[in-house]
């Protein structure tokens, strides 16, 4: 019984790390531009495919593959901002319009990936072989790397937004675009950086996930939905709240799978999301103004 519980908590931790990396990317874009990027999951998938192509098809090794996947996703993110988001700045319906344009980007990327890489399932090798035992629960060493890496990455993003002028300028643009422009911040550049950073996070997540799950054109859909639940649960805006919510959702999901099974778990997660939206629209950790 205890063993099962520990195993479940550890698998919740792995899920939480995955969601934290995805959701923090959504959060960066939201806090800077005030839009929601539905292509975020597709960018994660591109990261995985590019990593596979470079690492396996071209045989350049996994680390080069992961770096290429991250970079490719970042460039695509900047491109999406430039082509599908920037034309609508200042538009009164920007939020709704960009829901549609980023959804379009998601479809284009998914179908494009299907055309380029085909339907056959692909998988990356693991960064390290072997398994690690935590209080009797066993996970692969690769998953353990993900668990350690996620908080480190979140911490460095947080430090970036608090300590560096470039990071601060992203927050400033999110809080008051006009004032930001008047102190000399290049607002369009800040938008591009936010999208690039967010997409790089998605790409890195995808490249790491490609060793655990199968790489398919639609592999990003489920993590995107979970990341959305996380940001609604935690409240958009603060990186700490997003990260906390990611781990809570990951562990709740693992427990629900244990108790209710795979079939009912998404149902309960969405129910939780609706309850939060009704009673605490600013999120569990969001400040109620």
């Amino acid at each position, binding site marked *: 019984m205890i063993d099962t519980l520990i195993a479940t908590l550890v698998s919740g931790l792995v899920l939480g790390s995955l969601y934290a990396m995805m959701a923090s990317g959504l959060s960066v874009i939201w806090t800077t531009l005030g839009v929601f990027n539905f292509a975020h999951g597709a960018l994660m998938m591109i990261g995985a495919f590019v990593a596979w192509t470079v690492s396996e098809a071209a045989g350049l090794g996994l680390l080069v593959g992961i770096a290429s996947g991250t970079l490719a996703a970042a460039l695509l993110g900047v491109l999406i901002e430039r082509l599908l988001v920037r034309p609508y700045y200042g538009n009164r319906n920007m939020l709704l319009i960009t829901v549609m344009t980023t959804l379009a980007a998601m479809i284009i990327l998914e179908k494009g990936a299907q055309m380029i890489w085909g339907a056959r399932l692909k998988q990356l090798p693991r960064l390290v072989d072997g398994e690690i035992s935590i209080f009797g629960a066993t996970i692969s060493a690769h998953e353990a790397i993900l668990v350690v890496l996620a908080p480190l990455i979140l911490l460095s993003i947080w430090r970036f937004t608090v300590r560096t002028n470039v990071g*601060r*300028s992203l927050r400033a643009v999110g*809080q008051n675009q006009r004032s930001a422009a*008047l*102190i*000399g911040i*290049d607002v369009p550049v800040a938008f591009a950086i936010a999208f690039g950073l967010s997409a790089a996070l998605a790409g890195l997540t995808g490249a790491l996930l490609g060793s655990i799950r199968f790489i398919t054109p639609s592999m990003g859909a489920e993590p995107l939905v979970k990341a959305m639940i996380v940001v609604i649960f935690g409240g958009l805006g603060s990186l700490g709240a997003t990260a906390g919510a990611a781990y809570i959702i990951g562990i709740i999901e693992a427990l629900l799978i244990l108790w209710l099974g795979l079939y009912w778990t998404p149902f309960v997660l969405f129910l939780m999301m609706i309850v939060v939206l009704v009673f605490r629209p600013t999120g569990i950790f969001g400040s109620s103004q």
Partner: protein
Amino acid sequence: MGRLLDISQVTAGYGSITVLRNISIGVDAGECIGLFGPNGHGKTTLLQTISGLLRPAGGRISFEGTDITGARPRDIVNAGLIQSPQGNTLFGDMHVLETLELASISRRARRGRDENLRRVFDLFPQLGERRSQKAKTLSGGERQMLSIGCALMCSPRLLMLDEPTLGLSPRLKKELAGAVGNIARSGVPLVIVEQDVEFLLSLTQRLYMIEHGEVIREIDRANAPDHDSIMKLYFGEAVH
């Protein structure tokens, strides 16, 4: 000519609404000027057009001899043409010190950062006391100080202040007016937008009265109107 800031025949507005009509204004080196006039007649629009937030539909703006018509706000800040906007709330969730440091992000302001920071804290000791407080917790007067402080962090070669004392108590207004006077004496040319003409006359050499997006009167110290004629300018002739 060689004026510091030269605005000639500028037309600008929002969408199909024209706010500024062929407006021409100039600032010479070492000079402080004031803009006044009724609300909603284009003073703020003029400053936004100069700062590059609005693209003029016609006319030409040049700063230190360089054409900056339609330039990006960032490049205008880089050139040293700085605005402290009206009723500014700045960045609510950022600390005072963080905000001031960020304000020196432009290339030319970075060099003078430490010196500018000292200057801002000398001018507004209150900001020094509140340096680790979030901007949204500041009082109206302190926010205004922070806004002017940010503008000073940009190493201005010309500073435009949009109603720096708007909505403040008389005591705070006096304090801020003193600070603005200090800035002027330190040699920074100013463009001040204000409703209070006497306040403007005490700080500036020349005033422009703006109505319906046009300069309808230019006033200098030599032909400065007295209190009654200022009232007449604003409210028209009283008919008994």
